[in-house]
């Protein structure tokens, strides 16, 4: 029996530390495993015993790329525990800060992390030498997103202006207006970026994914909606733990998530697009059609195009929110804290991010559960790798390795976010 292993020990151009291994026996694929060895960070445990009003500033620390997503899932979950709804301009401001995060995160992933794969470069630096203009466009797009987050959040990373019920301080109209020229330029750049990535030569490969994302009747989802799937699931976010299960696997410090029936599923841009494309801003919808995207995209190598569509949508939406903005009387609604359980999901750039908190009479958190998008996508990533190698096992190792890495980067995985333990077992081998 001949054994062949395709592996990469430390993945580059992903957020955090991971590896993969595909094993073949006599030319047939036996297994494809993504391992995440980023150290676990025990965020859920350290939230226990903290006050509800601190939780969103703690969860923001889970990720330097998507702190807004963590803050938003936390404040929405706590608000649901308290029976509070945030409406009007405060709700619009939350969408605006989320736009900022999508823009910066997608711009970073498209230009610095993913584009080198399609253009045949080993890294961003060598790509920048030959595609300087596209690269600079990526940097200024990212900066435009940063500016929104910094203005609303008080600073660019780990914003400090968000609170349960709204914000600590709401911006003035004239402050938001200062963003407009840069965002208008960025919207043009996003359109150019979309045309650029639509021209990438991508592998012709489709899979019948089970897509899972928020779905909202009136808008492309950031903060709010029911959890829907491409096979008819339609549930309140509170029902998430009944329909999706996390389990620990030995090779990963990130829990693997599957449906209650044991299926792999996909969250992120392709899932959002499949379930919400009609509610994209018209500009983004038309540009998507021009880029050749149908109503559903099942080719994971075209996720980069969907990401560019979403970035364009977020810029157009941000400009609309700013144009319509009316200063609220108060920066936050009244909160009447009470004991209870609250769950919410929002759409992080990488996909559905579910939070659930149990809050006691004393206002302290009794239990917290956080299910990040990359945890949910691990099973899907492994199935992609399996199919990829299975379809063409005779390719040289180096080719397969490159393709496998590119496949993993289709998901823009945020490995640092995903790493956490459900339970830590120490087997010292000293028991009889």
């Amino acid at each position, binding site marked *: 029996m001949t054994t062949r292993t395709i592996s990469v020990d430390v993945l580059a151009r992903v957020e955090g530390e991971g590896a993969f291994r595909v094993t073949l026996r006599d030319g047939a694929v036996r297994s494809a495993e993504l391992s995440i060895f980023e150290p676990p960070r025990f965020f859920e445990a350290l939230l226990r015993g903290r006050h509800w009003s601190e939780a969103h500033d703690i969860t923001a620390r889970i990720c330097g790329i998507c702190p807004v997503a963590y803050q938003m899932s936390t404040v929405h979950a706590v608000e649901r525990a308290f029976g509070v709804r945030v409406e009007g301009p405060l709700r619009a401001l939350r969408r605006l800060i989320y736009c900022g995060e999508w823009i910066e995160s997608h711009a970073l992933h498209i230009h610095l992390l993913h584009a080198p794969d399609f253009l045949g470069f080993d890294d961003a630096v060598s790509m920048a030498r030959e595609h*300087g203009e596209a690269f600079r466009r990526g940097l200024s797009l990212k900066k435009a997103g*940063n500016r929104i987050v910094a203005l609303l959040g008080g600073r*660019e*990373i780990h914003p400090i202006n968000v609170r349960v019920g709204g914000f600590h301080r709401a911006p003035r109209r004239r402050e938001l207006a200062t963003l407009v020229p840069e965002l208008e330029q960025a919207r043009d750049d996003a359109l150019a970026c979309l045309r650029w990535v639509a021209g990438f030569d991508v592998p012709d490969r489709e899979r019948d994914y089970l897509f899972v994302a928020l779905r909202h009747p009136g808008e492309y989802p950031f903060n709010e909606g029911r959890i829907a799937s491409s096979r008819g699931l339609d549930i309140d976010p509170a029902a998430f733990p009944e329909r999706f299960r996390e389990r620990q696997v030995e090779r990963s410090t990130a829990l693997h998530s599957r449906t209650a029936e044991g299926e792999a599923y996909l969250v992120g841009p392709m899932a959002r697009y499949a379930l919400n494309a009609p509610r994209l801003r018209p500009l983004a919808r038309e540009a998507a059609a021009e880029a050749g995207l149908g109503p559903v995209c099942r080719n994971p190598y075209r996720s980069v195009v969907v990401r560019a569509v979403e970035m364009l949508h977020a810029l157009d939406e941000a400009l609309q929110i700013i144009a319509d903005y009316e200063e609220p009387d108060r920066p936050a609604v009244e909160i009447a804290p009470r004991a209870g359980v609250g769950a919410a999901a929002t759409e992080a750039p990488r996909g559905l991010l579910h939070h659930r908190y149990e809050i006691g009479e004393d206002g302290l958190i009794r239990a917290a559960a956080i299910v990040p998008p990359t945890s949910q996508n691990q099973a899907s990533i492994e199935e992609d790798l399996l199919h990829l190698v299975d379809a063409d096992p005779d390719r040289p190792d180096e080719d397969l390795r490159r393709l496998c890495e590119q496949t993993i980067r289709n998901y823009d995985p945020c490995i640092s976010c995903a790493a956490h333990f459900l339970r830590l077992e120490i087997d010292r081998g000293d028991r009889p």
Partner: protein
Amino acid sequence: MTGRPVRVIGLGAPLRGDDAVGREVARRLRAHAPPGVEIHDSDGETAALVELLEGARAAILVDACRSGAAPGALRRLDAAAGPLPAGLGAVSTHGLGPAEAIELARALGVLPPRCLVYAIEAARFDPGAPLTPAVALAAERAAERILEDLALPHV
């Protein structure tokens, strides 16, 4: 060119032990910076760093490093002359650290013609820990040497 500032950029995370040394140097320089010199803090985020480099007439970056030298060892590297040595042991785990930002700026043709990097050997990165004494001393020496650099006419 003279309208553009000279930028000193202190890199690192403020609450991670010796990783904060770049920011400590920036803090020390803030009160003494000559006119036309800007002092910046940076967490090393690539796009922001490229932007800081692009707008500068000359740049001096200060960062912690891990190369196996004694804690507090201070090195002054000329980044304009070529890539930083690979064995410097960038602190960033995510592959897009300051060294890569410098290379990106070079690839895009926006690296300032004068670009120095002060690398200070760190000992520990424990959350909340103060600078280790040898590293704190190195911060003082680095600040003094940078003031000498800034006094040179061609910087």
